[in-house]
C-alpha cells in the first residue's frame, strides 16, 4: 500500500475505535459491551495491519495475531464472568453492579 493511503486506513481504524468506545459506554448488556470491546481491539488490529503494510513488514500481521489471541482469551474469561453474573442476578445488566461505591 502506498504511504498516502495509510492515513485513510488509520482514520478508518480510528472511526471503528470510536464506534467501539461509544458502544461500550452506551450498552447496558455485558455481552454487548464485550462485543464492543472486541470491535475496539480489532480497530487497533486494523491499524497494525495498515502500518505493517505501509512499511512492507510482517510485524503488523504478527501483532494482529497477538491481538486476536488476546481477544479470545479475554472473551473466554469474560464469558465465564458473564455466566456467573447471570446466575447471581438473573440478568446481565451492568447497571445493577453498583454496590461498591463511595
Amino acid at each position: 500500500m502506498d504511504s498516502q493511503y495509510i492515513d485513510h486506513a488509520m482514520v478508518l481504524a480510528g472511526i471503528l475505535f470510536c464506534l467501539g468506545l461509544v458502544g461500550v459506554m452506551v450498552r447496558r448488556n455485558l455481552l454487548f459491551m464485550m462485543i464492543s470491546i472486541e470491535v475496539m481491539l480489532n480497530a487497533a488490529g486494523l491499524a497494525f495491519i495498515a502500518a505493517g503494510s505501509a512499511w512492507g513488514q510482517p510485524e503488523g500481521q504478527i501483532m494482529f495475531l497477538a491481538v486476536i489471541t488476546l481477544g479470545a482469551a479475554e472473551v473466554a474469561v469474560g464469558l465465564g464472568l458473564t455466566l456467573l453474573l447471570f446466575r447471581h442476578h438473573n440478568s446481565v445488566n451492568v447497571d445493577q453492579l453498583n454496590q461498591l461505591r463511595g
Partner: protein
Amino acid sequence: MQQLWLIPCLPLVGFLLLVLGHGRCSRSVARLVGVGSVAMAGLVTLWVALDFYSAGAAQSYQVQLWPWFNAGTLEVSFGLYLDGLSLSMLFVITGVGSLIHWYASGYMWQDPDYQRFFAYMNLFVAAMLTLVLADNLVLLFLGWEGVGLCSFLLIGFWHQDPANGYAARKAFVVTRVGDTAFAIGLFLLFRELGTLDLPTIMALAPEQFVMGANRPTLIAALLLAGAVGKSAQLPLHTWLPDAMAGPTPVSALIHAATMVTAGVYLIARTHEVFLQAPDVLLVVALIGLFTLLISGFTALNQTDIKRVLAYSTMSQIGYMFFALGVGAWNESVFHLMTHALFKALLFMTAGSIILAMHHEQDIRSMGGLRRQLPVPFWCFVIGSACLVALPPTSGFFSKEAILIASWQLPGYGPWLWLGGVLGAFITAMYSFRLLFMVFFGPQKAHPHEPKGWQFHPPLMILGALSLVAGWFVLPTATVLPASPAGHPPTWTIVVAIAMPLLGIGIAYKVYVRHQWQGLRFVQWQKLRQFLFQGWGFDGMYKRLLLTPFTTLAQVNRNDMIDGLPKLLIQLSRFLHGLFSQLQNGQLRFYIATLASAAIIVLALALKVL
C-alpha cells in the same frame, strides 16, 4: 573497641524480648531480662573502660556501624563515638541504671503491668545510651527523641488515672518546645559547618566561627534552648514536678540520674560551639543560677516527698549549668556523676519510705521513722549529706570545685559565687527539713518495711559509692577545657563550708526543736502559696499562654472566619465528599470518565506539536 555497639544494643534486645514475650513470660523472666540487659551493658562498659584506660585514657574512638542515608554532603550513619566524656556518662547510665533496675524489680513486683514497665525502662536505657554514644548529631537527636518518648510512656505509666496522662503530656509538650529549637539549631549548624559529625564539628568550630559573632551565638542559643527543655531549667522547667506522677524508680532513673542530664551532656559535647559564644555561656550560668535559687526556695515549701526531691534535682542541675557557664566543664560533669549517685539514692530511699507508708507521700503525715526504717534512714542521711556537700562526701568535692571555679571567673565571678553559696545554704535547709520531718519527731503512722532482697542492697551500694566517689577522677580532662585556674582566698572556702552547716543548724532548730517558728512560712500564706507553686511559673504560663489561647478559641468557635486550619479541614472534607460522589459505582460512568480523560491527555499531548 569493637564491642562498643553491644552497649546500646543489649537494652534494646531486652526491650524487644519483653515486647514479643508480652503475656507469655512470667514476672521472674521479665525481671531477669529487664535487669539483666542493663547489667550486662554495665559489664560491657567495664570491659570498654579497661580497654580505654589501658590505652592511656586519652584516646577517642569512632566506630562506624553502617551508613543510614545521605544527601549531597550530609552523610548520616549509625556510628558510635567513645571518649572520656561519653565513658563517664556510660558509667552513670549503666552503673546507676542497673542498680535502679534491680531496685525497681522489687518495687514494682505487685504491679500488674510489670513486663511493660521493664520494656519501657529498657527502651529508655537504650535510647539514652544511643544519645551519649552517638558520633553525629542526627543520631544524638534520635536518642534525644527516644528518651523523650520513653519519659512520656513512663510518666503516664499508670494511665488509668487521667492526671498521670496529663502530666505525661505536659512533659512531652514542654520539652517539645526545646526540641524544636534544638532541631533548628542543627539545621543552622549544618549550614555553617557542612557536617553534623561531632568530632569534625569540634575541630571545625574554632576555625570557622568568629568568637562572639552572630552565627555561633544563635546556634549556641538554640542548642541551649533544647538543653533547657530536656533538663528542666528555667523557663521550661514546669514539667518536672508533675512528672513525679510516675513510679519512683522512673523518677530516680529518668528525672534524676539520666534524662535530665542530657542537656548538660549536650552542652559539654558541643562545647567548642559554646566557647565561640561567650554571651550564651553567661546566659547558661545565669539560667543555672536562677533555677538553682528559685527551685531551692520552692523546695522549702513542698509537702510531697517526691516533689521536694524533684525541685532539688532542678536545683542541682542548675548547679551543673552554672558550672558549665563559668567554664568549669570538668567539674560540671563530675557533679553530674555524683548527683546521679546521691539523687538516685535519695529517690530510691523515698520509694522505700512511700511503700512502707502504704503509698503515703505527704511528709506531714510522717515522723520519727528512723527507728522503724534504719537502712532507709542512714541511706537518706548519706544522700542528704552529699546533697548538702558536707565533707568528705562526694557531693562536697564536686560542689566545692564548682564554687571555686565560679569565683575565678573574671568579671561577675564573686557575684556568681555568692549566688552559689546562697544556693548551698538553701539546699541544706530544705534537704534537712525533709530529713527531720520524715525521720525525727513524734511518729504519726506505722510503717511496714517492704520485704525483699532487692530493696536494701542497691541502696547500700549507692550509699557507699556516694561516699567514696569523691576521690574518683573522671577521664574527661582530655575532652573538656580546663576550668579557670587560680586559688580563691581561703575565707571563701570557709564560708562555703560553713553555709551548709548553718542551714542544717537552722533546719534543726525549726523542725526538731520547734523553735523559731516564725521562720516557718506557715503564717505567711500568700508568700507560701507563691513559693509552693514554684514561684508561680505554672500560673504565669497559664495566664500568659493557655488562658488567652483558650479564650481566643472560645471566641472564634462561633465565628465563621475561623482560621486557616479549620478552613483547610472543611475544604478537605468538602472535596472528599465531592470526589467521592464521582465514585458512584456505575461501570459505564467509569468508562465515560476514562474516555474523556483520554481525550484530555490527547489534547495535552497535541499541545506540544
